[in-house]
């Protein structure tokens, strides 16, 4: 198998990685870069456990070939919050009990982050649609919806409720 070099920006850091044409982005992240926060569930784009943000868009990293991500800017769960300070979405997930086994959580948080980036005050239907590509087998989803709503409140009170008034 031919090797090839690709260059990508992952969580703000430029990385050069040797890979093969048939390596999935998911495997590159987990096996080559040891970013194991990104999970493999179904491997077929149905469960969302492998979700990452690539060039500003939510994608299933199991359905992206590594060379397709050449030059891309990628955010994985490791790029959200840091050791000292969690992201408000992460805090909300913990506080509402939206994390049970935790396997869907990285993908779920990235989907929620992306949703709130595009729509700072989603209604229930919009929340459901925003995370419709992510399966959770523990929570029954209600606590995840609650978490997203809590994050919405926190974020809007943080910016002085400005976006609420604007809307």
């Amino acid at each position, binding site marked *: *198998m*031919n090797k*090839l070099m690709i260059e990508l920006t992952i969580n703000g850091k430029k990385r050069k990685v040797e890979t*093969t*044409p*048939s390596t*999935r982005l998911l495997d590159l992240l987990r096996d080559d870069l040891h970013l194991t926060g990104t999970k493999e569930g179904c*491997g*077929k*784009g*149905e469960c*969302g456990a492998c*979700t990452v943000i690539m060039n500003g*868009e*939510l*994608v*299933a990293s*199991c*359905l*992206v*070939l590594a*060379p*397709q991500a*050449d030059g891309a800017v990628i955010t994985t769960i490791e790029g959200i919050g840091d050791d000292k300070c969690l992201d408000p979405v992460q805090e909300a997930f913990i506080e509402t009990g939206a994390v049970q086994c935790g396997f869907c959580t990285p993908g779920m948080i990235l*989907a929620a982050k*992306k949703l709130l980036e595009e729509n700072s005050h989603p209604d229930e239907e919009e929340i459901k*649609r*925003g995370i*419709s*590509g*992510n399966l959770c087998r523990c929570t029954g989803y209600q606590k995840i919806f609650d978490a997203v709503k809590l994050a919405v409140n926190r974020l809007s009170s943080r910016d002085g409720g400005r976006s609420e008034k604007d809307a």
Partner: protein
Amino acid sequence: MYQRTVPGQYFAPHKIEEALEILSKYGKEIKIIAGGTDLLVQYYDRLYEVNSWLDLRNISGLKNIRINKNEMEIGAMVRHAQLEKSEDIKKYFLILSQAAADIGSPQIRNRGTIGGNIVNASPAGDLLSPLMAYDAQFKLQSNQREMIVPAEEFFIGPKKTILKPDQLLTRIILPLPKEMTYGCWIKIGKRKALAIATIILALVVKMAEDNKTVKDVRTCLGSVAPTPIEIKEIRKKMVGKYFEQLDFAELGQIVEDKISPIDDIRGTREYRKDVAKNIMINALEEIDSARRLYK
């Protein structure tokens, strides 16, 4: 006939011409990848079987939606999310936008492309029935020549098309509607997200200037035959008639009688026949109320 490629070649050209050159050399020895949302599922666990890849992602000439005089041209690499959000598509081809919005999940819509959906040629392909209903044509290019074929001639069986190994689907061409046009899109699946359709109906009705007489109609269905199909008998029954005099139940019955669905995990033949009739009636009712609202 075609050259064997070196194992594991990965081509990502920037121009259509370069892609066609690569195809003319390697033909079916190479796998074309667009969004990959169908392809990588098909090759799950056996990616090693793919000898070489032709990745279309860098070809900017395939990513645009543009209007030329009387038609819209959609590049084959336009993603479902783009179709869903495009104001031009909402304005002229509303049910194509609705169909795109119903595909998979955000993750899938951000990667999957219109060209991939067409070439994959699944009988359940979400965009195929709306494209047929809007009289879409496909531009196929090779190094040697280019041709434009109507959507209904392109599909020849489940996952089978007339596309030759050296050809690339580059554009989708849709005539801009001249008449008052109403459309209805219905997809029945087991759940809202990530459902492969059990049955799809794309109904497009063009009205005469009086907004009462049917000028033309396309009744296109998916997941009910080896390819997406149009029920042409509906044209005979509707064209030239006053919409309010149509017998919706009779039209629904024709749809039920003319489809040939199979039993599979998503639904039985009998279920699909029943549902086909009912969604046809629903779609006609929906178009009727939209028509009445428009003065």
